[in-house]
């Protein structure tokens, strides 16, 4: 398995009675962007922490570059870069001082350190912020600084824990462009997210829910292999339509996306469009029904059974289950 950067088998971690990560099997190939998609509390951070030797697995094993963790953690450390979910550089140091610090901690010699710092400052558009204290940076700048810091020593493996949770959409796109560049350069990237659009961009994806790995594969294949029929309902009374549909046996889940509903129907249901129309009609709701191909959110819903009754707050705690459904590309409906 020399082409795998990470291999985990039966990886489990408990905190008291809580099973935060539940026998997860993983093989993460080298040079790819591998995503962890899951709502808050699904065990993404705990898994990543085990994969960089910060937490000892309660059961199972994790190997990085063929080395057993946490036993061989020290040997692995120079080869990995870990970007924590919460900003963990020094807020009272400047941008440049933080980078200098990280360069020294990774024992980079002066010449290479200078070179790498200059190149990362330019690459992550921090040139004109060099002398600014990290604590005064915006969310997007902090996140770029964090990435600049963990990539300074050119690690073979990057572990990024919800790197974009605190930044605006444009910064997220720029950030992902940066990740693709790194992957093209041969870096293996493990990135956790609760954004659907980000998950879609990964080469491979693992969907986590309540500590279990519920689906794994190439995003497009995950969507096309979904074991359900997805219908889209456009209506001006989504709430009422949803209530009506959820009481029907063959409907597995109803997810609201803006003014539209995604209705997941058991495969093998006879003429699902007609049946759904009938349900809507008897519920007194007008709506246009059409069959669509599944997106990742449907995959997630199909794999977990979450369809919106449980609010899955975003990492920053800002989003709940709101009727307008503005954040249509997030895990929570």
């Amino acid at each position, binding site marked *: 398995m020399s082409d795998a950067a990470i291999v985990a088998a039966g990886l489990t971690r408990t905190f008291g009675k809580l099973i935060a990560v539940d026998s997860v099997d993983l093989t993460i190939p080298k040079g790819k962007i591998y995503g962890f998609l899951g709502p808050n509390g699904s065990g993404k951070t705990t898994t990543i*922490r085990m994969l*960089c*030797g*910060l*937490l*000892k697995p309660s059961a199972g094993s994790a190997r990085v570059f063929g080395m057993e963790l*946490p036993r061989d*953690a*020290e040997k692995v*450390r*120079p080869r*990995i870069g*870990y970007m*924590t979910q*919460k*900003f*963990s*550089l*020094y*807020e*009272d*140091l400047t941008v440049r*001082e933080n980078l*200098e*610090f*990280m360069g*020294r*901690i*990774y*024992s*980079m010699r002066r010449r290479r350190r200078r070179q790498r710092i200059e190149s990362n400052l330019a690459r992550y558009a921090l040139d004109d912020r060099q002398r600014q204290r990290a604590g005064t940076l915006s969310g997007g700048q902090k996140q770029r600084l964090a990435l600049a810091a963990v990539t300074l020593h050119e690690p073979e493996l990057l572990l990024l824990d919800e790197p974009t949770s605190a930044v605006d959409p444009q910064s997220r796109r720029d950030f992902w462009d940066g990740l693709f560049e790194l992957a093209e350069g041969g870096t293996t990237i493990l990135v956790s997210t609760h954004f659907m659009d980000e998950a879609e961009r990964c080469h491979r994806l693992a969907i986590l829910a309540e500590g279990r790995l519920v689906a794994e594969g190439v995003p497009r294949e995950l969507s096309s292999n979904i074991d359900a029929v997805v219908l889209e309902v456009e209506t001006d009374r989504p709430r009422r339509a949803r209530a009506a549909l959820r009481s029907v046996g063959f409907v597995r889940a109803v997810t609201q996306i803006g003014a539209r509903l995604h209705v997941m129907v058991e495969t093998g249901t006879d003429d699902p469009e007609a049946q759904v129309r009938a349900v809507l009609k008897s519920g007194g709701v007008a709506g246009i029904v059409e069959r669509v191909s599944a997106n990742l959110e449907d995959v997630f819903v199909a794999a977990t059974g979450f369809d919106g009754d449980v609010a899955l707050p975003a990492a920053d705690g800002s989003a709940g289950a709101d009727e307008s459904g503005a954040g249509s590309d997030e895990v929570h409906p």
Partner: protein
Amino acid sequence: MSSLLRMGAIIGKEIRQLSRDRLTFGMIIGIPLLQILLFGYAINLDVRHLRAGVADQATTQLSRQLIADVEASQVVDIVARARTAGELEDMMRRGEITVGIVIPADFERRVREATRPAAQLLVDGSDPTVANIAMRLAQMRFELRKVGVERPSTVFEVRTYYNPERRSAVQIVPALIGVILTLTMVLFTSVAVVRERERGNLELLITTPIRNLELMIGKIIPYIVIGLIQVTIILLVGWYLFDVPVRGSVVDLYQGSLLFIAASLSLGLMLSTFAKTQFQAMQLAFLAFLPQLLLSGFMFPFDGMPPLAQRIGRLLPLTHFIAIVRGVVLRGAALEELMPNVRALGIFFLITMTLATLRFRKRLD
């Protein structure tokens, strides 16, 4: 080389952060200044005109001369006359006087015998200021020559009531170095580590190749410098304001201080491995401070403590440092003469440093 680089990174970072943390920076200078001024001022209060009673049993020219000299010093005002020491004691208990002067009937003879105290000073020790002021009186060399008496030693034998231990700025200031260092050094290091944990910096730091020992050493070196600065502040203020001399070698003093600072810092590091929050770290630091304050010989004379207290006291670094600093500063001893204490500090440092390094886990669980 890599190791030095990593250690240097920690040291440099720590110094930068310190120089930007005004509160901590203020504490580095402020705590020693405040403490020494508070202690020193209380001790040095130039109290004059203490109420004194005299029992002059000699009533000779010489005894009257002595009383006149004492009054001339303005340290005491003689407000009462008594016949016996017992009467003076009664007055003192009632609070009418704070100092009693007893001149025995054979005063003339005693004055000429340098081996015996010529007169007695009764001091109300319940008030430490009084005790210290009266002590100055005792140390005065009265101009008895005027009346044709040559006496090399002081005139008075001092009997301190209610507080048999005699203190003075000279005794307290050197020991104060130890107390201040104990307070600040343990606190600074334990908080410095726990703060990183609290702010989340540690999670990043422990995924880097830094080794435990490098991290520990990197954390204490900046504070060693700070400790030495504090020693200097206390010595300078002590010398300037309170005339505390350094009788021994300054190099010895700094070497001893260095060892004690290292021991206190490693104690702080060890405590930090038990604390999750800065508040817990502070509580632990305080917990470590109290027994040192009480059992080190700073508050109570070490030899007078019960054996168990002494045994505990010998385990504490402050005890040994106070022995060293009093030896070097006041008795002019060389460090080689204080080897048992030096060794004890060294061992304490090694043990706590080892424990801290072993207990520190580059893991979150």
